[in-house]
């Protein structure tokens, strides 16, 4: 699978070499944003639902250890095995051990961003376990040997013609057939065979209910149910933040999740798993992987409220024009940019800067995460931790010296304007990223300060 050392700006630059494709990507996701807008305007009390979702999650984060223990006890009472994983490595080892001890070599998986975060597929493949992703979008990116580019719409970066070509190569469909109905039916038939022959199924968890020990998985394709019901072993991976206190709170979260994600009133399947059926076993792997560290970061704690709806991606003007893969992280977009630096600040130092801080993400977030404020705060943390590029550090230092002194500001302003007038080639060149596709402002004769001195000199200069 592709990994890269390039930063967001470089990858976004590559993405932007094909402008019509950028337009297509932007418009596709904007359409999803519009569907979301229509859906949230149709029900009364949308903003109150967001507030309720936010407050419930605040309560969860403030009492997380208690809820987790309550959930574990209730799940165990339901006959479910509960495992704890401190990090991605431990999660993967637990899953592998469960599969190996049951002699399982092939599994089906429904969509789980946590297993993407843990790189589970690669790990299992290296250890001789074959993983088939059963979510249609994930199935497609798996065929293409890529990662999902979006947490809800994993193959949103692919055009239907490209999917037709992939299916032609891997599943033997006729060349040039890109009919979505035909392709979906092909995938369905192919996957049905797979479902019937797999002994173990892995799913994610959208909500884990502390008071009952049950968990809820939301899909539109029913693939999580199909996998879990046909397999002897169901393994569900969940981050520690997936807890909600009571079953009744689903009344808030199920209503905001699908509306925010795709503009649907509710996901087609909201499957509740509580007790394993006779002869089968259910395992829940509860994963920390940096979450308790994030919980300890006061400024970034509430990023853990995220319910993975993807609304912040669909609305983000930068995400829409740079594509999910430019973030080089399992979770892309604005939410990925505030989660990733917690896991590896050096590697993801570019992400909080891949934003104009426009704030649209914060406004669509169904649990009111202050995403753009956290992007600003991560920038401060990243610079203070020494991860700013050297040239930027130097430029900011110079800028600070000029702007901290009225005299040097006036002199620099005058000199700058003079240079732009007399020697425009000094700034209007290929080394100035502004000038590549934009003109610089027309330089005025006088600054406002100079104009004011001439035209309002009857007034006292300062008070």
């Amino acid at each position, binding site marked *: 699978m592709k990994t890269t050392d390039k930063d967001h700006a470089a990858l976004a630059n590559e993405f932007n070499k094909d402008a019509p494709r950028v337009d297509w990507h932007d418009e596709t996701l904007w359409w999803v944003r519009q569907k979301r807008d229509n859906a949230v305007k149709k029900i009364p009390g949308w903003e109150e639902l967001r507030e309720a979702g936010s407050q419930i999650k605040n309560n969860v984060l403030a009492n997380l250890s208690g809820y987790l223990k309550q959930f574990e006890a209730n799940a165990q009472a339901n006959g479910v095995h509960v495992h704890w994983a401190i990090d991605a490595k431990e999660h993967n080892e637990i899953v592998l051990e469960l599969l190996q001890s049951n002699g399982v070599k092939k599994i089906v998986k429904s969509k789980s961003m946590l297993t993407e975060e843990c790189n589970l597929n690669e790990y299992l493949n290296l250890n001789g376990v074959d993983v088939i992703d059963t979510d249609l979008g994930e199935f497609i990116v798996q065929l293409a040997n890529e990662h999902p580019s979006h947490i809800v719409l994993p193959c949103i970066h692919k055009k239907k013609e490209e999917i037709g070509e992939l299916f032609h190569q891997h599943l033997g469909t006729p060349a040039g057939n890109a009919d979505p109905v035909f392709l979906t039916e092909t995938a369905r038939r192919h996957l049905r065979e797979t479902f019937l022959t797999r002994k173990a199924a892995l799913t994610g968890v959208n909500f884990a209910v502390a008071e009952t020990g049950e968990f809820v998985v939301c899909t539109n394709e029913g693939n999580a149910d199909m996998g879990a019901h046909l397999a002897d072993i169901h393994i569900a991976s969940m981050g520690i933040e997936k807890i909600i206190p009571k079953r009744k709170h689903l009344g808030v979260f199920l209503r905001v999740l699908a509306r925010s994600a795709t503009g649907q009133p509710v996901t087609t399947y909201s499957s509740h798993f509580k007790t394993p059926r006779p002869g089968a076993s259910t395992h829940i792997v509860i994963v920390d992987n940096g979450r308790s560290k994030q919980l300890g970061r006061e400024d970034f704690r509430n990023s853990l409220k995220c319910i993975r709806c993807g609304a912040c991606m669909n609305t983000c003007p930068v995400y829409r024009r740079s594509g999910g893969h430019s973030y080089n992280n399992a979770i892309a977009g604005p939410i990925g940019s505030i989660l990733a630096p917690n896991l590896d600040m050096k590697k993801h130092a570019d992400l909080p800067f891949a934003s104009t801080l426009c704030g649209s993400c914060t406004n669509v977030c169904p649990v009111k995460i202050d995403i753009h404020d956290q992007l*600003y705060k991560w920038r*401060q943390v990243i610079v203070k931790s020494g991860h700013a590029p050297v040239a930027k550090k130097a430029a900011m230092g110079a800028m600070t010296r000029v702007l901290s002194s*009225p005299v040097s500001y006036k002199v620099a302003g005058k000199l700058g304007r003079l240079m732009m007038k007399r020697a425009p080639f000094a700034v209007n060149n290929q080394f100035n990223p502004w000038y590549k596709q934009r003109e610089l402002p027309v330089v005025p004769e006088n600054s406002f300060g100079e104009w004011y001195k001439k035209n309002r000199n009857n007034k006292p200069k300062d008070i």
Partner: protein
Amino acid sequence: MKVGLFVPCYVDQFYPGAAIATLELLEKLGVDVQYPSRQTCCGQPMANSGFEHLTGGCNELFIENFSAFDYIVCPSGSCVLHIKHHLQSDKNEAKAAAIRNKVYELVEFLTDVLKITNLKGSFPHKVGIHQSCHGQRGLQLSQMTELVAPSFSKPRYLLDMIAGLEIMPLDRADECCGFGGTFCVAEEAVSVKMGKDRVADHIRNGVEYITAADLSCLMHMEGILRRQGSPLKVIHIAEILNGECTV
């Protein structure tokens, strides 16, 4: 009422016309307004780049220049938002706190403090309003399309007072133009694409002038329009409201 005119550094250097219009408009409305000549920059370029710890000098200078005024008014939502959220001082925290509460963007000063109900002016053109993000989502100068809430627009309320001015609806009412401070050079490709898409929306909808309460966005879109050789122009809202086009 003593008002201090806060002119952002890039407006001072590149767009004096917008600052003059702001000054003249406030004077016409009978406001006692002065421009402290030792002002430089609010510090936002450093802060948004992750260097807020270097803004101490700018902060102290800002406090020194503006503490004595009853109100501080600025023709840029972004700079006002920065001062409101991030001005701080170890030496003069009480003064910093006072400033955070008395700094206003021009439009909100006109609608919320002066509460003006009419303006004499004429601008017989088709105008597109660019909702600058920091003014809109930060200072709430107008309602945001993401929220389910009653619509309002302070810039539009003022522009509706101007004779002959026709506001053109846009396909995307409040999408960012892609300027974003240092983002415009650090993420050049995406920034430019966002700017191109934004001006295309105005062009598609028959706009002759793009106006905004923030010149940074207008500077960005102007840079793109001029490179494209487009006849579409940008104009700061103060220049329309002041009734005399100084560009």
